[in-house]
């Protein structure tokens, strides 16, 4: 019994400690972001990994998300003879919600896990300690480029997601379901605002920061050999995804109250 209570206490302490560690890592990252030297080569490599590498999977997800949404929406709107609203519904849900969240989740699965594995391996093989000994700050060398890459590339991918998603919705709605082309596009233009697109981009920006930070944090503090690296990777994906969904709620509440 006593052991149980101790265990519980220890877990609580660990959790609080983890939050503290992550916060400190974030602050350290932010500080090192603005301090020279700026390592553009590393930044581009990270951007290629996070952005270019995820491009294909994000586009594929976007195309089918838009298509399936149009299909489902058309089914529902048909009950009211209001199929003309399919385009605008898909566009608004894509721009505000689906693009940033799904892009965030896809990039977490692909790049967040990759970052955690890479950094975790470096950690357990003591490469990070080696950087220290070479007077290179590992936060600046490893985390800052990946963090910035997430901030820049996820919004870009999210914008592409929306466009491709609309293309999918257009294909299903206009080509397959014969919804009037003019009404489909007209209603979309009428109902969607630049603010909707902007809110999606802001969300994607935040999610980009979250998923890279979680990946870096889990990798940076990985321990326990190959098993520890595996655990760090899994946790990076799980925590990253959950945090994105939670943050999405609060961002939505803030922006559309």
């Amino acid at each position, binding site marked *: 019994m006593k052991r149980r209570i101790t265990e519980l206490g220890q877990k609580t302490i660990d959790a609080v400690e983890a939050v503290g560690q992550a916060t400190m890592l974030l602050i350290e990252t932010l500080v090192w972001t603005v301090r020279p030297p700026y390592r553009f080569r590393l930044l581009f490599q990270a951007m290629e990994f996070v952005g270019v590498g995820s491009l294909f999977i994000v586009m594929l997800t976007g195309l089918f998300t838009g298509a399936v949404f149009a299909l489902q929406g058309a089914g529902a709107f048909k009950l009211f003879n209001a199929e003309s609203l399919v385009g605008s519904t898909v566009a608004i849900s894509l721009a505000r919600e689906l693009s940033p969240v799904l892009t965030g989740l896809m990039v977490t699965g692909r790049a967040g896990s990759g970052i955690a594995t890479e950094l975790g391996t470096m950690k357990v093989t003591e490469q990070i300690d080696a950087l220290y000994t070479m007077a290179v700050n590992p936060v600046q060398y490893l985390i800052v480029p990946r963090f910035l890459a997430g901030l820049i590339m996820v*919004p870009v991918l999210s914008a592409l997601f929306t466009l491709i998603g609309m293309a999918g919705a257009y294909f299903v709605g206009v080509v397959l379901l014969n919804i009037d082309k003019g009404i489909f596009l007209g209603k979309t233009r009428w109902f969607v605002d*630049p603010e909707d697109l902007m809110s999606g981009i802001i969300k994607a920006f935040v999610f980009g920061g979250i998923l890279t930070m979680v990946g870096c944090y889990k990798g940076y503090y990985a321990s326990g050999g190959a098993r520890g690296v595996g655990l760090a990777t899994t946790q990076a994906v799980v925590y990253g995804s959950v945090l994105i969904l939670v943050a999405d709620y609060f961002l939505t509440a803030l922006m559309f109250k």
Partner: protein
Amino acid sequence: MKEILTPFKVGLVVLIGVAAFIYMVGQVREGIGDDPSGYRVYCVFDDVSGLVEKSRVVIAGINIGQIDKIELDGERARVWVKVNTPLKSDATVAKKQASLLGEYYLALTPGYKGTPLKDGDEIKRILTDVAPADLVNELKVIAENVREITGSVRAVISSKDGEQKLAQILDNINGSVAEVNRMMGANGPKVDRIVDNVTEVSEQASGITSDFRRDAKAVMADVKAVTNEIRGIVGKNSGNVEEGFASVKGAVSRLQSAMDKLDGTLDRTQSIATKIDNGQGTIGRLVNDDKLINGLTDVVDESSRFIKKITRLQTIVALRSEYYLGETAVKNYFSLKLQPKPDKYYMLQLIDDPRGRSMYRETVTNTTDSTKNPVIREQQTITEDRFRFSLEYAKRFYFVTGRIGIIENTGGLGLDVHLLDDDLELSADIFSFDDNVNPRIKMWGLYTFFTHLYVAAGIDDVWNADQTDFFIGAGLSFDDEDLKALLTTTGAPSL
């Protein structure tokens, strides 16, 4: 190689992403909300349920704007509308339902007269539309009425009395039919012959009707009359049908000769029409000459323009009395304004002025008669022309009207400044340049506080200190519409 490729690939993806974003923003920006030529007007509704911000605003079904904002205005709703087409002050607005789902929009008409609406103006004319909900209520009332009717019918039928009556009616109908049957049987051959004759007539008639339906109509009326007669004869006395039949025959032959004549007339008409068509004869030339028709069109255009001018001409009749405080006298005005355009008018004014026009006369008589004074000096101030007139031409620029012409029998100038939606008018006249030391300057304010009633106050002859006087006044003003209404309700004076 890789070092060059990495930035390139990254840059490509970023550029495509940014381009996608800009493209999408450009696509959805097309709403009227961002149109620089748009402006905001508002209208106040009793009920705006169903209207939301960004709802459509249409003229003739075409989107010309959207609802910008809806706010509470007392216990009504003020709807701000952003539009991009010019509207006039008599524009109307109506809330309409787009579908049974409850999607609403505003339908505008731009208006055709009045001042153009500016940013922040109100559309005052609200048309209320029948909402489907009201329609349902209406239908409910109708349904109740129908139920009442059917109820009373049922009451009539189901009662013993009603049943009896119905049975009686049916019996009567039965009897009538039997009677007709019997008669038809008895008079069968005769009726046959009548029918044959009628067929013959109608065959002849059909030849004509195919060409001239209109004339045939009259013929048909005759035939109808004839058949009526036949029916009358048959019904009255079946024994006398033979006799009646003979007269029918006579009628038919008369009809036939009439038709022959008609035929001839129509032939002639046709030949005349052909001639006209070919441009023969006077009428033909008239009809076929394009120049003539063009000339005629010009004349019609011209006269319609003239008529328009006349109908645009507004007549305003005004009466005004001013009470001069110093002189304790009343000055009356009667004015007739002819206004061909809103910014231009001619005014004829008749004035009854207590002051009149003063003339100073001195007569000196010298005499050598010792019994009298050697010099007689007579001084006379003559006041004449208590009755005066003004004839002015006025032109308005924005809120200022300039007047020029004859003011109170002398040349003069005037200026009006219109304020508070033309309710308040500040005016100054300068005239009578040589009667006195200085020209007469009159300044006054005129406030219309009720549709046709106004009050005035001012100062007269400002420049000649000894003559300066203050006055207050009031008056009435009527325009065409009022006069029309007055004349139709009180009756025009018979001349």
